């Protein structure tokens, strides 16, 4: 309890002498440690030599003779560089097109008055209610009809327009003082020039928040690429990892599964640990994904 007292020294005066909040804090610490166990096992199992045998596989104490064999095996069995490339192409492609569509639409809703503004706005809102994940069946048949089955473009296309992104940019653009635009108007700047040189540079924090949400969600997407992609060399990381896991499960090769999982999630974890604050605030703004 001394430790908890020390951690509680900057609590508001009112709660410093109460036991209940401290117990809640203690419970949270224990749960946070429990939350880390799968990650801990992943790290320990990755470095465990196969000579330790299956009975030591569940030990959370690291092996005294760590090895990189599992990482090498995972690297050789799975086609991870290819999966990384595919996922990177998918996420970048989606994000670049989204930047264009949400900037233009967000500007129209923020700064232009036009016939049918309210109904069209509700049309956008509907996308949030329709839960795109559930529309996989009709969208798969459309992708087949468009000749995009088994292509990365087919994986990307349904996400090119984003209602959430449009709302986010509309909010950002509305916060920019109109005086700036008026000045540019006097200088004879066209609509696109005004968006490009005034609105976009002043909304970079919103763009970065959107980029974090968009990339994380498409990096992790599984069901849709599983349906669209058939060729092994076009698999994204998630689909690749599931196939890899299936194969290694058959041979009871748990160290290799841990190593493969580690390779897939390491880039995300490292990026998160570097930009922690930005990630968390983006996720809070996202709300409705």
């Amino acid at each position: 309890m001394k430790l908890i007292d020390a951690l509680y020294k900057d609590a508001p005066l009112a709660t410093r002498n109460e036991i209940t909040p401290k117990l809640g804090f203690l419970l949270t610490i224990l749960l946070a440690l429990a939350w880390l166990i799968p990650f801990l096992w992943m790290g320990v199992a990755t470095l465990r030599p196969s000579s330790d045998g299956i009975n030591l596989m569940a030990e959370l104490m690291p092996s005294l003779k760590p090895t990189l064999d599992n990482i090498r095996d995972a690297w050789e069995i799975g086609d991870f560089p290819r999966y990384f490339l595919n996922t990177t192409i998918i996420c970048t492609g989606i994000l670049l097109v989204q930047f264009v569509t949400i900037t233009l639409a967000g500007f129209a809703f923020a700064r232009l008055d036009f016939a049918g503004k309210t109904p069209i706005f509700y049309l956008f809102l509907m996308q949030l209610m329709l839960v795109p994940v559930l529309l996989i069946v009709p969208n798969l048949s459309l992708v087949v009809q468009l000749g995009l089955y088994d292509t990365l473009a087919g994986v990307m296309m349904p996400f090119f327009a984003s209602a959430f992104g449009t709302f986010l940019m509309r909010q950002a653009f509305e916060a920019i003082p109109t005086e700036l635009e008026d000045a540019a108007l006097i200088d004879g700047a066209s609509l696109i020039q005004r968006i490009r040189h005034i609105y976009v540079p002043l909304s970079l924090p919103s763009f970065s928040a959107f980029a974090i949400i968009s990339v994380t969600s498409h990096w992790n997407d599984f069901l849709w690429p599983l349906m669209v992609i058939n060729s092994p060399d076009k698999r994204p990381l998630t689909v690749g990892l599931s196939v890899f896991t299936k194969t290694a499960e058959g041979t009871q090769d748990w160290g290799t599964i841990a190593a493969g999982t580690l390779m897939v999630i390491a880039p995300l974890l490292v990026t998160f640990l570097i930009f922690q604050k930005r990630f968390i605030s983006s996720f809070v703004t996202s709300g409705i994904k």
Partner: protein
Amino acid sequence: MSLAEPAALPVAASAPPRLRVAKRFTSRLKASLPAYLLLLPSLIFLALFTYGAMGRVLIDALYQRATPKAPLRFVGLENIGAVLGDPAFTGAVVNNLIYAVGTAIPSIGLALLFALALARTNVVTSALRAALFLPVLIPMVAASALFLFIFLPNVGLLDHYIGGLLPVLPNWLGDPDIALYAIMIITIWKNAGYYMLFFLAGLQAVPEDVMEAAHLDGAGPFMRLRYIILPELKPTFLFVIVIATLNAVTQVDHVFVLTQGGPSNSTNLVLFYIYQQAVEHFDVGKASAATLLTLAALMALTALSFRTMANREGGP
């Protein structure tokens, strides 16, 4: 542009009223043109993959093929009837309801506990928040790969550490009575840190001086929680419940990796059923009917929550 308008006015004023209205309408459309052009790229993709998809689900649900190669035949509501009469679908709906309630309540409860404990910002609380948030970031497929070993019978992590406390070692993913609850643990582990963020944001709205005053008046921690904090968090609760429900219907990657809906359909969820009908049985009619029913249920729920949320100020 604005300088040219007065010159046109006398003509418009002398025209018959109907023509004037028409003229005003066309000029408004003309003025709207730039906005339409800006919206066009978004609207094309929304039309193809959202509204169009919705329309196609409606139509596809009305047709059926006798065999995968046979021509389409109009069957009206037969597909809907077939889905509602399919024990696999009704089973999936029941599973999904258990799954939704059984994941939402614990993860939201834990999220509230985490947020209350970690509301103050310092090095320790930031580290704990990060630890609890990590599972949110990783793909569900990766989480499933890790839990595959955690749930492994006899030698797995769970049996290794707590197996001795149980009368018999359960086959976590292989026992139809347990498997659904096992995959629920993964979901709770993955989502609690996400919902925690919304509660942390909501807690910032609770005024510190009111809390201090309540404490001086002798209100204990539970009284303050009940009468000050929870009322303040009501909108956050509503919001998080909606997100948790949507997640319960859309997150099924762990079913694909861990159980394939089994054993004996005990972990079959609605979206997995839709996938099976479309991709494994090539039954687009039945898959569309199931999609339609699920969408209708979710849209009703979301519309309800949007209406409730429209009445609240700010929030996440």
